């Protein structure tokens, strides 16, 4: 296990450094010295080079190094601000400082040429399971995935955990996963007090379903919890659904409706949803729930009515939740997903889902335009979780940025039934910036060339 200290060390690393400091005797003090010496050695040539550059450029400098980072020449797609044009983005102190045509390179400490690439707000995945840990199942479990392992390499800067925890278990989730992650981790809170149980035979004690406690927890952790979640409930009673909706109303947040509720019909679920509530696994084709598209290939009228009423449809791809015989007719008939939740977990990650860019690329292949795909991966997703501070590149917003390339070639995409469609474009994450810091750099855009 080998690592280099970096400015964004997580808590654990800091603790290790504290340990080092605590331990230092003559020998270890020496070691610390050497580490910094090493850092200096690396910096000297860069420093002298930039000094030379500075001296040469003095007459031309007006905004000398005002910005920390400048992404130059990319195709900027920012749905909130209705921008789809060649524009530069300047970042300062972790925030978007300026978006404009031709910001001079001299104004920034670091300039990256991103021409030929798409510059988008950091992507948002509103359906994940990231309470990864030691136990069987999802809660602190082996079925969940660590956020940083999947998000950053897909241009994602914010993920939303889909109800893996309830009001009793959320604080533990926050301590173990949310706080140490580089990815911004938000959460739908489960109406069941301990969230997911490990098995599918989960029969909760309805007496423990508490809207008030759930709403209080949302309010207490309002920077992290974006709404309530109902799913994986095999009972007949509508009490848990209604309580989930009630808690969401109290906290003025949406309700996220997941799968595995065999006793509720699709129409009943949609009828119980308010405008702004989100149904996921929209294009699933499993015996447990009626499909959105009927046997004749028509989107059911009550589904379109729900859409008209403001119910939002998330992809929620998962291992079994995405079928072309649903998604393609639905797309053609105007039932577009509002967000590309991946439902990332142990069994979906290596199946047809793979990662969010793969899911987004499926929609490019189905016929959605690049700006529409980017909007649904960023701004639409942000609005749906009522986090309008995210998913945009407005000046002053946190500098969460995805720089994406479009690969051209012959690609294949499969659904949950191993059905395959072809496509000629696929998205790849070149650079991911989280709060102004480069956290992913696929091809070393920000690196120095070896000499």
């Amino acid at each position, binding site marked *: *296990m080998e690592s280099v200290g970096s400015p964004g060390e997580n808590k*654990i690393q800091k603790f290790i450094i504290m340990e080092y400091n605590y331990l230092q005797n003559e020998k270890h003090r020496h070691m610390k010295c050497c580490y910094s010496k090493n850092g200096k050695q690396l910096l000297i040539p860069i420093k002298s080079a930039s000094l030379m550059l500075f001296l040469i450029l003095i007459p031309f400098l007006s905004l000398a190094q005002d910005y920390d980072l400048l992404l130059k020449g990319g195709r900027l797609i920012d749905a909130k601000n209705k921008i789809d044009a060649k524009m530069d983005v300047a970042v300062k102190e972790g925030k978007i400082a300026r978006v404009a045509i031709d910001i001079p390179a001299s104004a920034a400490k670091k300039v990256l040429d991103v021409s030929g690439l798409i510059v988008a707000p950091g992507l948002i995945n509103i359906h994940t399971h990231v309470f990864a840990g*030691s136990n069987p199942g999802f809660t602190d479990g*082996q079925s969940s995935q*660590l956020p940083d*392992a999947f998000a950053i390499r897909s241009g994602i800067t914010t993920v939303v955990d889909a109800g893996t925890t309830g009001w009793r278990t959320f604080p533990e989730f926050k301590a173990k996963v949310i706080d140490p992650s580089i990815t911004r981790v938000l959460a739908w809170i489960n109406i069941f007090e301990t969230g997911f149980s490990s098995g599918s035979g989960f029969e909760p004690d309805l007496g423990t379903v508490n809207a008030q406690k759930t709403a209080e927890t949302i309010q207490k952790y309002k920077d992290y919890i974006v709404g309530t979640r109902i799913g994986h409930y095999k009972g007949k009673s509508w009490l848990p659904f209604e309580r989930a909706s009630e808690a969401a109303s109290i906290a003025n947040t949406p309700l996220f409706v997941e799968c595995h509720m065999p006793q509720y019909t699709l129409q009943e679920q949609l009828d119980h949803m308010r405008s702004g509530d989100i149904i996921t696994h929209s294009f699933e084709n499993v015996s447990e729930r009626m499909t959105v598209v009927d046997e004749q290939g028509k989107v059911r009228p009550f589904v379109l009515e729900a859409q008209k009423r403001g119910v939002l449809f998330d992809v929620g791809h998962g291992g079994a939740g995405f079928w072309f015989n649903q998604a393609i007719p639905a797309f053609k008939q105007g039932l577009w997903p509002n967000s590309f939740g991946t439902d990332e977990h142990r069994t979906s990650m290596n199946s047809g889902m793979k990662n969010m860019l793969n899911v987004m690329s499926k929609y490019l292949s189905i016929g959605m335009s690049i700006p529409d795909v980017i909007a649904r991966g960023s701004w639409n997703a942000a609005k749906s979780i009522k986090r309008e501070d995210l998913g945009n590149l407005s000046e002053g917003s946190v500098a969460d940025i995805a720089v994406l390339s479009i690969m051209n070639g012959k690609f294949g995409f499969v659904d949950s039934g191993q059905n395959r469609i072809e496509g000629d474009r696929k998205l790849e994450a070149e650079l991911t910036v989280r709060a102004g810091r480069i956290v992913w750099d696929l091809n070393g855009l920000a*690196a120095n060339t070896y000499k």
Partner: protein
Amino acid sequence: MTLLKKFSSCLFRYQIVSLMVLTLPAIQTVNAQEIDILLKGGHVIDPKNNINAIMDVAISDGKIFRVAANIPESTAKKTVNVSGLYVSPGIIDMHVHVFQGTDKYSTSVANSSRSQQADAFSFRSGVTTMVDAGTSGWRNFRTFKAQSIDKSQTRILAFLNVIGNGMIGRFEEQDINDMNPEMNAYMIKKLFPEILVGVKSAHYWGGFTSVDKAIESGKLADVPIMVDFGEHVPSNSIESLFLEHFRPGDIFTHTYSEISAGRESIVDEKSRTLKPFIFEAQKRGVIFDVGHGGGAFSWAQAIPAFKQGFLPDVISSDLHDQSMNAGMKDMTNVMSKFLALGMELKDVIERSTWAPAKVIKRTDLGHLSVGAEADIAVFNLREGKFGFTDVRKVSVEGSKKLEAELTLRAGKIMWDLNGISGQPWRE
């Protein structure tokens, strides 16, 4: 009597002939049913068997059934066209940290979220076997096994840390009282010989104590040791490690690290020449493992070493939280770095399959011999302009990059990037 004999032998012959006539189509039918998956038209690179040519690979019952040119499609239940792609034995990543968990007392990779989940990184990189590099020791190996190894679809093997608690924290890793060669060797040789392939010594701040204790255990269990020779101040002599302490077959990991202090580099940092004893050490049987990690791969080491004729024995990732999103990224990226250096693809594949299999004495793995478990990686060699970054944010350009197209573990498709094994969707 003789007539009778003649008659009966004639009858016997007739019976044989008729039996043959009857069974010939039967053999063919059996044949047709026996191939479960046929990978057709790929360029097979199987260094153990000296294969580097276009061939078909047939899989039956989770095992390699046949490797030959032009195996007829009619003999297989399922044929996947892999023409234009490279077919290699499933990749063995000999250096990872996959003891993922949430032990609140762990300040390093053991049982913490600093380790990663094997299945999240393996198959999408063509990896079918991961070797955990001493994240656990004899005290917590059972937890690691129950929680990660037994739950994974990836085959996980492990080096057992010489420290009883493994990599639970840097401070604990200094505790020589927790280095117990007998217990360590007992665990490897008697209790878990199927999983434990060696001993790890790492992150020690003192002299040679940790290495020597590991070797003591390695001798008792008859396994190699892997050494992360990291954090000695002043640094210990690698010449002494290689020529005086190591046995042939012992592994030096983080081969291309350059941290100036705390660890001696293989390439002299001033003259940029490979130290004279390195070739001698390699000749003597010291195994040089890449172990890229978050801090252990510098172009300033790798390029001069390569130019001076030095090649690593094993290519590995050192997967953990600090390496995965930095210069390392994943195993295919690390392998592609060696293509960018100028190494031939077959040599890169060898150092990620058959070579590590031999090092960890698991010669059942890392090849496509008939009868071997069907762990297979199918790669696409992308062409374009790629950049490869080291741990110092220094980048080198390359024109080729490996991408895992299809990964099979014991004959089962675990990863299929472009759905080449799927059926076309019809409206």
